[in-house]
């Protein structure tokens, strides 16, 4: 068994036009930068992308949108991207907006082997249109299905050669959920170590969920909203 790939291009060699792909990250935090760059280089098209956000014009999934590689976007929030807006309004890009917790839990359900979940999010709103509902203890819930994705592309902080992953701070977000949910899961990591070097107590995603792993390079980690406070006198 060898899960270790030389780089992003080799790790996505079999992604095809029309595939359904999950991409981890919240905004630009914790996105699989190397894998997105490889998808851009590969030029695959008609992709359905499941990702909380759609990047910005010149970074993240925005790079794939610019080249019209994305047919459909499934997200909870898609601001901050002019090209996205243009394609959505012109009808070139199909967009399905779903509540963020529903998005996360539909990933989780896939990774837990459950076909569907019931959630109260969206009851009584247009999100509920056409969906099966059911009452539990006097409260109404929507039935939402687990995602079915061909690939999950995630970014972790540390990983080992068996595919075990550790995430950092809020760069965790959707990454461990999507890692569990892909038919094939590819993880890029900042630090790749031999199996046995990571403390098993600290593993967030067990390697069983990860099919391919490689050490990413040249992380830009762009910040969307750089907010700071003035340093106090003497600091």
């Amino acid at each position, binding site marked *: 068994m060898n899960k270790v790939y030389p780089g992003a291009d080799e790790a996505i060699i079999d992604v095809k036009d029309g595939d359904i792909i999950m991409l981890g990250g*919240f*905004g*630009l*935090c*914790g996105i699989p930068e190397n894998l997105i760059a490889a998808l851009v280089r590969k030029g695959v098209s008609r992709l359905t992308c499941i990702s*909380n956000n759609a990047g910005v014009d010149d970074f993240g999934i925005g790079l794939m949108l610019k080249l019209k590689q994305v047919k459909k976007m499934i*997200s*909870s*929030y*898609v*601001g901050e991207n002019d090209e996205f*807006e243009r394609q*959505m*309004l012109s009808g070139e890009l199909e967009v399905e*907006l779903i*509540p*963020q*917790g*529903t*998005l*996360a*839990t539909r*990933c*989780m359900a896939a990774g837990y082997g459950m076909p569907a979940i019931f*959630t*109260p*999010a*969206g*009851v*009584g*709103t*247009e*999100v509920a249109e056409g969906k099966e509902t059911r009452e539990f203890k006097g409260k109404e819930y929507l039935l939402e299905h687990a995602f079915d994705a061909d690939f999950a592309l995630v970014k972790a*902080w540390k990983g080992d050669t068996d595919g075990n992953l550790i*995430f*950092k*701070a*809020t*760069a*965790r*977000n*959707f*990454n*461990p*959920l999507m890692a569990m949910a892909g038919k094939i899961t590819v993880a890029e990591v900042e630090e790749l170590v031999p199996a046995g070097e990571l403390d098993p107590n600290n593993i*967030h995603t067990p390697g069983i969920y990860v099919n391919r792993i490689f050490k990413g390079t040249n992380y830009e*980690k*762009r*910040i*969307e*909203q*750089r*907010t*700071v*406070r*003035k*340093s106090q006198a003497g*600091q």
Partner: protein
Amino acid sequence: MSLTKEQIAQRIARELKDGYYVNLGIGIPTLVANYIQSDIAVFLQSENGLLGMGPFPFEGEEDPDLINAGKQTITTLPGSAFFDSAMSFGMIRAGKVDLTVLGAMEVSDLGDIANWKIPGKMVKGMGGAMDLVASAKNIIVAMMHTNPKGQSKLLPRCTLPLTGVRCVKKIITDLAVLDITENGFELIERAPGISVEEIKNKTAGRLVVRNEVPEMDLT
């Protein structure tokens, strides 16, 4: 005088109690963090996966891997914890978060809220708002009483697409504090110097006014 956004945040901060886990939305709600009383311990939840959110970092100490749900760089406080997005909304759905404060474009006198979509305008998405309003035990809306055209945002029925139904418990605006009751908006407090008459004129939904309505205490 109607309240400034900072004063609305200051008044909302008085609703926070010791030991509360609180989710603050974007806009005025974010400002609430600046007015939390120093003698209580409050954990701020950021739905991208953090409990125990701290203030913005000092310049040069920003960490791109540490942001809040508004994508701003932040810090953590002692006792904080990170988790994934499913657990984040899990704790919200399970009613573990004591209070959610969020902004709104419209609120109805039944407690319905609209804050994510304006027909004809670019729709950016609901983010976590629908999950939050569907599950939070206590929801306070922070908003201006009227829109920029001077029209009431407190309505008999929301005209915009809904984010959630019958979920808002309290509204704190630049003019008043109001509770949602089965009889509509009940006027609890008014901003200093604002008359009950003015609040009546600017509230389109059903408004209940009991005898004496005290002014807000912002000290």
